């Protein structure tokens, strides 16, 4: 069955609400309106306005309420319409939710999920198009995951809701309307902390996540080099075993990140891979990232700004054929 990602998210929420009476969901316009991206459609009608609760525009207030409800044994799923809105509420995640188990020496935990739409490509402009996983990544006590389609959206969300610790789910907005073959199996879970090799190849390991996964796939189709693609899925903690093994096999590692280099996850991964030793490497590592600029609104410019299959293929082909890391486009003259 072909399912849009928004339907998969809705189904994961529906199944979670049905199977565990402690699950509640909170957010702006998620109830009566079914969510800004229609990922919660029909749930309030089905479960009532106490378990599927519309909130005022008060991100600090309702995210904090999610934290408190989680401590008291509920499993709240808080929706942030756009990940940027966490800028007014970050404290509740990185300071409160993240340290509760530690400070209470395990007596209190925060089985909270925060879902947020993230990433670019639809002309929402520079304050509604970022990924921002770096606000959370590496915060001890938090986990961060990012689906790349309907199947992983379902599996990750259900796993996140069942997880005993706070999990941040970054849903690439551009995928909400995209259909993926996925026969919903209510028992399907995407284990947190595990990556997936979604294409085998011998020449180079390409680690990516979220919306970039399909860019990577399209790039692999047209690239002369044989690309092994790893869909990270869990941004933090990440699956070092799968990545190390693949990099060892191919001898080359490239990351494709929808982030600036200084904030993306690729630096940590690449430095850890290379810490294992340099002998197996045939080429330097390479990171394909966003340029150091906010994202422009205009469609042509946004398309240039974001890595395209062509660009990714070209960069990787250059790396594999020369064993020299290519420059990024913004280091050349425009």
């Amino acid at each position: 069955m072909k399912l849009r990602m928004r339907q998969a998210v809705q189904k994961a929420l529906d199944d979670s609400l049905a199977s565990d009476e402690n699950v509640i969901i909170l957010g702006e316009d998620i109830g009566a309106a079914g969510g800004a991206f229609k990922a919660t459609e029909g749930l309030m009608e089905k479960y009532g306005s106490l378990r599927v609760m519309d909130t005022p525009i008060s991100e600090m207030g309702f995210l904090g309420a999610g934290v408190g409800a989680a401590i008291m044994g509920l499993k709240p799923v808080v929706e942030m319409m756009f990940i940027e809105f966490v800028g007014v509420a970050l404290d509740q995640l990185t300071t409160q939710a993240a340290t509760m188990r530690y400070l209470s020496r395990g007596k209190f935990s925060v089985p909270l999920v925060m879902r947020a739409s993230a990433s670019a490509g639809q002309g929402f402009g520079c304050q509604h198009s970022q990924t921002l996983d770096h606000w959370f990544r590496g915060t001890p006590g938090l986990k961060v995951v990012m689906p790349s389609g309907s199947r992983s959206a379902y599996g990750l969300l259900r796993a996140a809701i069942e997880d005993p610790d706070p999990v941040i789910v970054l849903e690439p907005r551009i995928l909400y309307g995209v259909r993926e073959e996925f026969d919903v199996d209510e028992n399907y879970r995407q284990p947190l902390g595990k990556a997936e090799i979604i294409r085998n190849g011998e020449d180079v390991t390409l680690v990516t996540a979220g919306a970039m996964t399909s860019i990577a796939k399209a790039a692999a189709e047209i690239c002369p080099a044989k690309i092994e693609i790893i869909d990270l899925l869990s941004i933090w903690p990440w699956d070092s075993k799968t990545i190390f093994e693949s990099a060892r096999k191919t001898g080359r590692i490239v990351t494709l990140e929808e982030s600036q280099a200084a904030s993306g996850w690729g630096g940590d991964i690449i430095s850890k891979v290379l810490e294992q030793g340099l002998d197996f490497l045939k080429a330097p590592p390479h990171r394909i990232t966003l340029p150091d600029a906010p994202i422009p609104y205009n469609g042509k410019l946004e398309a240039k700004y974001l890595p395209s299959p062509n660009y990714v293929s070209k960069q990787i082909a250059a790396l594999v054929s020369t064993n020299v890391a290519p420059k990024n486009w913004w280091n050349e003259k425009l």
Partner: protein
Amino acid sequence: MNIKNEPEAVRRREALKDRIEQLRRMIEIRAVEERIQALFSEGHIRGSTHLANGQEAVAVGIAKEINFRDVVTCTYRGHSHALALGASPESIIGEICGRSIGCARGIGGSMHLMAPEVGLLPTFAIVGAGIPVACGAALAAKVKKTGAIAVAIFGDGATNIGAFHESLNFASIKKLPVIFICENNLYGEYTPIQLSTPIENIAIRGSSYGIEGRIVDGQDIDAVATSISDAAQKAREGEGPTLLEMKTYRFSGHSRSDPATYRPPGELENWLKKDPIKLFSSNLIKENLASLELLEQIKIEVTRKVEKATQKVLASSEPLESEILNHVYENAETKL
């Protein structure tokens, strides 16, 4: 600030002293927004866009009462304010269509309009974010003794966010020359105010900060203007901030994709009776300042003007790719 003298915007602002021009501007705003909605359907606009039709009296009422050197922060629902304050139709339509003719050369989009030469900062896409920024502009005016004031415009839903609370308290304790204007259009996105806000009148929130709160008929441009003029005078005299609640209504949905089916039957119809353009037109006729013919003529002129602006936009270029990397920092050498 690095603001070229753009006499046209200032002229458009000054023109609002005239009552007929006030009406003309309201009609222009309505026409531009209707055109934008159409451009959306025609595929010229990406992302989202938020119409303020029905709220034109608030925008023009503010613009006509404050100085063009005063500073305004407002929200993504900013077409009306940008045009009222003096931005040209092509700079607004152009921005929303992502063309280089746009006020931000197509880099910002619908949620980030601006009119720097008449005090409008790039509009704020994060609910509440413009409110503390306006306080800062007021603080600068106070420190530099420029005599300017600042105006923060935001919605009813925004009064539930922390930035609102912190800003009103800060402005009050520091007696900043700022006016807080809530456009209470009864909805925050798809949620009616009574489901998000347990009080009827936002204006009473002023009392938590020792700030005078005033309820204003936002459909009546004269009522809007009087309230602004009083608050501005108070601010300029060093008497601190005022909170004005403009009771108003948006005739469209929250954003382009919202059919607004959540409205109770009859509500829109009732508010349409309070269409600020109709109300003001009747008043001008009663005052013998306008005739039905003049109104007709204005509509024709405005329609022509907006169509011309639209065609100019559609014929204009997209921004250069080099714009992507421009204006991140002033000194490029500190960039990586």
